[in-house]
């Protein structure tokens, strides 16, 4: 109940920020130099054609009127009309949303699976060769272009070891998990590079805390102490690192979707940029920002679930 109230309250508090987001998304396509209409028609179009298109897109109206139209389109749930698909933007975006959501969740789970054991190993064997090896691997992972890794994995799994499909979304839950494994893994590697580093140092710090000696004095073996007492307290700071990088992780899906030809919103963004489908770009920008805010809300709830001292108010 408290969680529900907190979530509702936070959703209400998000409204001003969401209005700000719509303004930015709106201005993005109108204030920047460059005219969508002439870009859309291309250099060969006549002035009359450009003017006609400007009128059709509503670009000849005053800015405030355009913004009101934009808000109206959002209020009626259509987010405007897609130029290329001639359907409401909301419909186009919503049908592309599931693969991206699955990809984000999947890669986060994989990142956690990578992070927890490796960070614990590195922390417990601090300054040993295995600690340095883990550190070295993830310094490389942090500098590795995800799209490049994606291309190499496609080479590896597409040709040499065809265990995992290298493109598409698949059918059914297991089909999705199977098809999305490689892209999710690429994203997870980048995320894990950040979280392993943070969790390792946090485990090292927590292991010297007084309450850990209390746990040891009860007669718990060291692995039970780590599992039951160290890990949960160490996760607190790692969750906040993760939440700071949420937006980076979500943005990363755009490039990965393009590499693995996944029918998600990231791929839609790139395609819409090339086809100059500005209403879709605009709708997607708002969608992505809302997604970031939603996920940061989820991290806040997770934070409170792990640390009872934080009150959801």
């Amino acid at each position: 109940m408290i969680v529900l109230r907190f979530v509702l309250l936070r959703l209400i508090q998000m409204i001003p920020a969401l209005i700000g987001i719509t303004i930015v998304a709106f201005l993005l396509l109108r204030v920047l130099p460059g005219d969508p209409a002439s870009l859309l028609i291309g250099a060969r179009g006549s002035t009359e054609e450009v003017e006609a298109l400007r009128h059709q897109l509503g670009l000849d109206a005053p800015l405030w009127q355009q913004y009101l139209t934009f808000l109206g389109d959002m209020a009626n749930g259509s987010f405007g009309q897609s130029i290329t698909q001639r359907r409401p933007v909301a419909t186009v975006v919503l049908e592309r949303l599931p693969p991206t959501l699955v990809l984000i969740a999947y890669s986060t789970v994989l990142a956690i699976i990578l992070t927890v054991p490796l960070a614990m190993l590195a922390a417990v064997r601090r300054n040993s060769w295995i600690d340095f090896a883990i550190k070295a691997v993830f310094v490389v992972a942090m500098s590795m272009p995800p799209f490049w890794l994606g291309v190499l994995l496609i080479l590896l799994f597409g040709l040499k070891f065809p265990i995992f499909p290298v493109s598409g979304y698949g059918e059914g839950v297991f089909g999705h998990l199977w098809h999305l494994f490689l892209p999710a893994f690429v994203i997870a590697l980048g995320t894990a590079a950040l979280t392993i580093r943070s969790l390792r140092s946090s485990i090292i710090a927590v292991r010297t805390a007084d309450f850990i000696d209390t746990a040891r004095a009860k007669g718990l073996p060291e692995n039970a102490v780590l599992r039951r007492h160290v890990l949960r307290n160490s996760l607190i700071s790692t969750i906040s690192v993760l939440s700071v990088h949420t937006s980076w992780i979500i943005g990363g899906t755009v490039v990965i979707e393009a590499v693995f030809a996944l029918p998600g919103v990231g791929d839609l963004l790139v395609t819409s940029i090339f086809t100059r489908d500005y209403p879709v770009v605009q709708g997607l920008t708002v969608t992505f920002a809302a997604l970031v805010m939603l996920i940061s809300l989820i991290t806040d709830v997770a934070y409170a679930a792990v640390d009872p001292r934080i009150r959801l108010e």
Partner: protein
Amino acid sequence: MTTTITETPTASPRQRRLPRLNPPLTAGLAMLVILLAAVLLGPLFSPYDPLKVDFAEALRPPGAVHWFGTDNLGRDVLTRVLAAGLVDLQIATVCVVLPFLIGSTVGAVAGYFGGLTDRILMRIVDILWAFPFYVLVIAIVGTLGPSTGNMYLAFTLVVWISFARIVRGEVLSVRQSEYVMAARLLGYSHLRIILRHVLPNAITPAIVYAMADVVLTILAVTALSFLGLGVQPPTPEWGVMIADGRNFIFDAWWISTFPGFAIIYTGIAFTLLGDGLDDLLRPKG
């Protein structure tokens, strides 16, 4: 009648200790020097032209003649990787320095004056913060059309908020310090106080972050070019090269692979530099 006022009211605790190199900093600097030497001098010594098409030499695997092989247009991959390095380093530098300057200024102004200025600026920062970095950059470059100049603009518009946040936080803590108070009492102008007393003591974390940001920026610049939204072919650029090689990945792995190694190498160099600078500049304790 004139009164002499001492130049500095109270000595600012600027770090004046001798820079002592630590292992990550030394390694990072060494890697950077090698990188710069390679991208600046390499193309001069290379017998190949990064742009010259020679179909007779197309898709040669790495060997004694072409160390990194050749691409589908017969261009020497090593020469192109080095030439691309210069392009990417230039772009990355501008894409970090511009947001650094703008963001630090905004952060310093917001933190120093506080009040309404601070609240408005930080509200803008908060709203921009909600947009995923890649989404915003792609939307801006996509709207303006792909070009290097538009990339500079896009990165500046998006990245300044990070520096603004960092510097503002630091300035807030420096603002209350005695030497800033003393400078204020002596009636120095705000500009002078910010430039001479506040910023030098608040900029360190931003410099350390800038090193990490170079890594992120190179990844983003190459990603944009890979998607076709950044540097355009035939200009040699790592992301463009990886995208080009992608069509031949099953026959000629080397075209895409080597530019990736170059990106990783550069990333490690700057990661080490950032870690080293962090150790060197951050006050102990």
